């Protein structure tokens, strides 16, 4: 079969900096090409260049051939006839990809009217059809709704509807499910696969997630620093990875840190005890005559963390896990129930006692850059929690302590005088961990600590967590939507859904033998690289026979 869209020797540079170098790929009808790479590898730029939507200051050479035209030479007016009609794109962030002040129907119909020059009424009817094709039938009544009234999954379906409205020949999807929950991700991936099959589109799927690509793509290209280092049919390629970078990427995706050496004494006096905690928010009233309704974000949750234990808390967005984390960290008091840390209730003790409790519990958040003041040096950032120790430490002692923890997380003591922007994402997360370690806590609450990191860096940070656990006897409360992360690093796991704990148990047991239907759904929705490859090989063998 011949390619409908192909890139040859595609080079792109932005303000003189080369982003893509000699990129070649082919897209075929009814087939999916997966483009994998870490952040900054140039995969998104490949997508934008296929759409000819490169940012200002970009220059390109090489060829992007589509139906006998070289798109790198096409003018913008020419491209307006191709974009959205023949080549369409699905974006990563469904939250911001839709115009907040225009209705769903209006936004889907717009492309139809623009390209097909049809009447408002015809476009409206076709829009209803398109929404039905992405699983948003008229029963949802979305035509007159606005984006903020939809769920994340529905929004992404609308973005897909906009892309496929004019039945394009080529569909480009840039991380189409990265911002979504696993169960929603599974639905969207199935939808995309079905559309490609049914409508015989050629698809370029861009992702950082090898498992997603292995599940979806017929052929895969691995990109690093703007160069495709390796490509081929999915099963075959993953079986014979020859480039060191692809091998490293593959290993990192499967990475599991060293398991715990000494067993945890679960009968010991618990470090943290959460009993019957309730958190609720008032909802805005429908009118002044009805009673105020409350949204129960966390409903009667109880669990405990033993010393040196690593507890995972998993659940999808909106399940109440971050609300619970804020209460555990002492940021918001519970509306019911109690928290006991080191045998004391942080909301009931005196100010000084609360400080001591705070010394024992520290936090690591998802976005390290956002949690640093860019004008503070690393030393100042890391030593900040030491203020809790009042004046027990001299300046010199503080500096020494900062250097100690920096070394303990794998940074140099010389890094103390630098500023956050001088570090990479992974190093910044190390700084965040150092800041948590500086008070010598016994428990670290980590809220999505590796979600923003690339796979290879994620593996390193997970190793660091495991190392600190063994070396310092640290206990963790690991909050994540990513089951594979929780599986890799925790002893016990709690599964939350709609503010309640639905299942709890030793991590291995819960994941291998989930009992609650919600846990089962969650576990089965997680893309599994090895499982996907096994299926892929089977299929490829069948095709060749």
């Amino acid at each position, binding site marked *: 079969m011949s390619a409908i869209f192909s890139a040859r020797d595609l080079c792109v540079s932005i303000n003189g900096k080369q982003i893509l170098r000699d990129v070649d790929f082919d897209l075929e009808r009814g087939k999916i090409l997966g483009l994998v790479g870490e952040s900054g590898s140039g995969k998104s730029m490949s997508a934008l260049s296929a*759409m000819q939507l490169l940012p200002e200051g970009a220059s390109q050479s090489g060829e992007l051939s589509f139906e006998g035209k070289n798109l790198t030479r096409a003018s913008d007016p020419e*491209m307006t006839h191709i*974009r*959205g009609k023949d080549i369409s794109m699905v974006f990563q962030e469904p939250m911001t990809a839709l*115009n907040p*002040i225009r209705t769903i129907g209006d936004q889907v119909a717009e*492309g139809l009217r*623009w390209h097909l020059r049809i009447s408002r009424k015809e476009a409206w009817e076709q829009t209803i059809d398109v929404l039905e094709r992405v699983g948003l039938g008229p029963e949802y009544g979305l035509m007159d709704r606005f984006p903020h009234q939809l769920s994340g999954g529905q929004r992404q379906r609308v973005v897909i509807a906009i892309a496929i409205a004019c039945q394009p020949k080529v569909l480009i999807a840039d991380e189409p499910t990265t911002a979504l929950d696993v169960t929603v991700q599974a639905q969207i991936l199935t939808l995309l696969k079905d559309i490609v099959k049914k409508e015989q589109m050629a698809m370029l799927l861009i992702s950082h997630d090898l498992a997603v690509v292995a599940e979806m793509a017929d052929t895969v290209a691995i990109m690093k620093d703007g160069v495709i280092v390796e490509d081929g049919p999915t099963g075959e390629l993953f079986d014979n990875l020859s480039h060191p970078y692809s091998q490293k990427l593959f290993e990192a995706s499967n990475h599991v840190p060293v398991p715990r050496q000494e067993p945890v004494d679960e009968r010991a006096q618990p470090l943290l005890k959460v009993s019957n905690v309730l958190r609720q928010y008032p909802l805005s009233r429908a009118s002044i005559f009805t009673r105020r309704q409350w949204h129960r974000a966390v409903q009667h949750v109880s669990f405990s963390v033993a010393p040196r234990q690593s507890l995972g808390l998993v659940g999808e967005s909106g399940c109440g896990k971050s609300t619970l984390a804020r209460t555990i960290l002492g940021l918001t008091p519970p509306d019911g129930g109690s928290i006991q840390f080191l045998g004391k209730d942080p909301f009931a003790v005196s100010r000084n006692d609360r400080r001591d409790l705070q010394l024992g519990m520290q936090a690591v958040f998802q976005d390290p850059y956002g949690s640093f003041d860019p004008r503070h040096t690393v030393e100042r950032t890391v030593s900040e929690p030491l203020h809790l120790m009042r004046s027990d430490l001299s300046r010199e002692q503080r500096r020494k302590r900062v250097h100690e923890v920096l070394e303990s997380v794998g940074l140099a003591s010389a890094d103390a005088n630098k500023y956050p922007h001088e570090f990479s994402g992974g190093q910044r997360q190390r700084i965040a961990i150092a800041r948590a370690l500086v008070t010598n806590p016994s428990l670290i609450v980590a809220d999505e600590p590796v979600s923003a990191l690339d796979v290879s860096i994620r593996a390193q940070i997970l190793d660091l967590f495991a190392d600190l656990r063994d070396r310092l006897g640290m206990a963790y409360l690991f909050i994540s939507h990513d089951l594979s992360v929780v599986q890799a690093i925790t002893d016990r796991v709690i599964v939350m859904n709609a503010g309640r704990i639905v299942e709890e148990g030793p991590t291995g047991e819960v994941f291998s033998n989930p009992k609650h239907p919600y846990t089962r759904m969650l576990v089965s929705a997680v893309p599994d690289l090895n499982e996907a490859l096994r299926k892929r090989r089977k299929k490829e063998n069948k095709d060749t026979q």
Partner: protein
Amino acid sequence: MLWFAFLRLIGLLTTLLAASLVIFVVLEVLPGDPAEVMLGLNAQPDTLAALRAELGLNAPVTTRYVSWILGMFQGDFGISYTYSVPVSELISERIQVSLPLAAGSLILSTLIAIPVGVYSARHHGKIIDTGIMSVAQIGIAVPNFWIAILLVYVFAIVLRILPSGGFPGWDVSVLGSLQALLLPVVALALPQASILARVMRSALLDVLHEDYIRTARAKGLSNKATLWRHGVRNALIPVLTILGLQFSFLIAGTVIIENLFYLPGLGRLIFQGITQRDLIVVRSSVMLLVALTIFVTFLVDIAYAAIDPRLRRRA
């Protein structure tokens, strides 16, 4: 949407009430009663007593406040001390000048600012953008009375095509009245337009970096279509905010401009009221201006909700 408007309306009435209280307290309850202030230092005790009785100052404070508020609801704003005519008559006469002046300059400044801001944003970073924004900067820096003097010099003294001041009255000559208002409207509008144009430009530049603009481009929309269909309306929200805030400056501007052009408007009435210590005129016209400003804020709030559906739920 209707519920939203209703809640805003309640808010508006509360604000009006609070404003009336402040005005009343400031003008009447503070040291020296209105009768003393009006008659000056050398007033005779019996004239003072007579004026107090005439003004109803002998009644308790609360009664006076309530009767003032109730009177205004019935269109009774009291009787001007210096003009000896009902204040309502004065105001209805003067507002025929001030309202077209304020509304005209508001409309003119918007009509100038939005296209200029959009044009400048489209040519962001080019020489034409820099040029327009420098001119706008000058427009902000220069006070409106100076622009007024310049306009009078050019159009009334050198070119002799427009009157330099005065107002014939709508019943005498509609065309003449319009001509008389033209220069004041322009003088008031230009500084406002400069601010608005800059806000429009920067708001639009912000919006153009949003993801949904990229989505619109990916649909195949041309640059221009994307800008008008997805950019401008979204950028209007900050512009509206400034527009609402500017209205009170516009009112303050009319006081100066009406004096400069000898226009018998509300601003001039207040100015004269203050210089002649006619506190009844001042009180009622200030209240009227406050009401106008609050009403404009209300309109801006409604316009927000009309533009942005996300604001409709909250109130």
